[in-house]
């Protein structure tokens, strides 16, 4: 009988601790951030040699409109969408399982519906290459012209992702 009571008490204690952990307000989601890695090249896009996905026409036009980002061909290498947490940092790993490109970010101020200020780091080959604070808006991303790779360059795009509604 005593053993049964002891186990019940432990169970209640464990469940209350779990509830407290789940209710951590710092882990509440205040937005979604999408990190996309493009391969941009003026050569043969097949040099990428991997399964790339077509880049939307709007994105192609947007990248091509800026001289420093203008290439003949663009392909999407990977993409990762991570929640923006109220108090904690998040890591995006767009080329999973590779950790060649990692983006760490957290909210620098309370985000609004239209704009978000991020404290952002870009890690390449496990080295912190760039640290910046950036204002992101609904249709105003951040483009980072990154390292060379296979006769082209990687472009890392960071943008706010629309909220995904759960399927009914």
């Amino acid at each position, binding site marked *: 009988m005593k053993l049964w009571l002891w186990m019940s008490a432990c169970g209640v204690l464990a469940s209350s601790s779990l509830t407290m952990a789940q209710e951590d307000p710092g882990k509440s989601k205040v937005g979604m951030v999408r990190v996309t890695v493009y391969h941009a090249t003026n050569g043969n896009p097949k040099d990428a040699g991997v399964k790339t996905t077509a880049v939307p026409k709007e994105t192609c036009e947007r990248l091509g409109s800026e001289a420093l980002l203008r290439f003949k061909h663009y392909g999407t290498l990977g993409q990762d969408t991570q929640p923006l947490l109220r108090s904690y940092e998040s890591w995006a790993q767009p080329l999973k399982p*590779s950790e060649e490109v990692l983006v760490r970010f957290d909210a620098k101020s309370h985000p609004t519906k239209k704009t978000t200020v991020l404290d952002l780091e870009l890690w390449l080959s496990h080295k912190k290459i760039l*640290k910046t604070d950036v204002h992101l808006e609904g249709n105003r991303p951040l483009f980072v012209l990154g390292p060379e790779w296979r006769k082209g360059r990687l472009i890392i795009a960071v943008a706010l992702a629309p909220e995904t509604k759960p399927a009914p």
Partner: protein
Amino acid sequence: MNTTPDETTLARWLEDELEGDELAAIEAWVSGHPEHLAERERVRKWRAMISGAVPAAEEPPYPDFFNSRVAQAIKESTPQPAVATKTRAGWIKFLMPAAACAGMMLTFWLGTKTHSGPVEVDVTGAPKAIPVEPLVYTPEKGVEAECFSSSKASATVIVLNGVDAIPDETDFSGSTTMRGLREKDKTAAIQMDNEEGAIR
């Protein structure tokens, strides 16, 4: 008449304030009292001495309602400043709204003149945000970053120079992150300008 005067009448007699019958009556009584006559002489001498040493007191010009008349005289003696203040206050009250409007218009005009750089066009029609240059830090030696706001691309652009190239041997073919790509993006790939389209 042998009536003894009261003290008040006697004091007034000493001060030479009595007249007529009252004076005659007390003079008749005092004639039998030489000590009072001597006293009056002493008071007269004392008064003469005092009046010689101290100037005679000036009677107030307006004994009746003295204070109110003095206050009125003060008001009348300084009429100009009061009128001038009232007039200036009226002008200020009239000019303050006009001056405030002029100040706001001038500030607005200066703001339009100090704006520099191209006007950014937000393709979504969303309100334009105030462009703020982000701080950029590159901890790695030899790496430099150029940051600018691109109005054409409607984006913030950072160009990294001096970054080590990723070895061509690195293969991202195992990337699993594209499996969840949105259907919209896949559809858009058909319309892209990129002639090669998706490489599969």
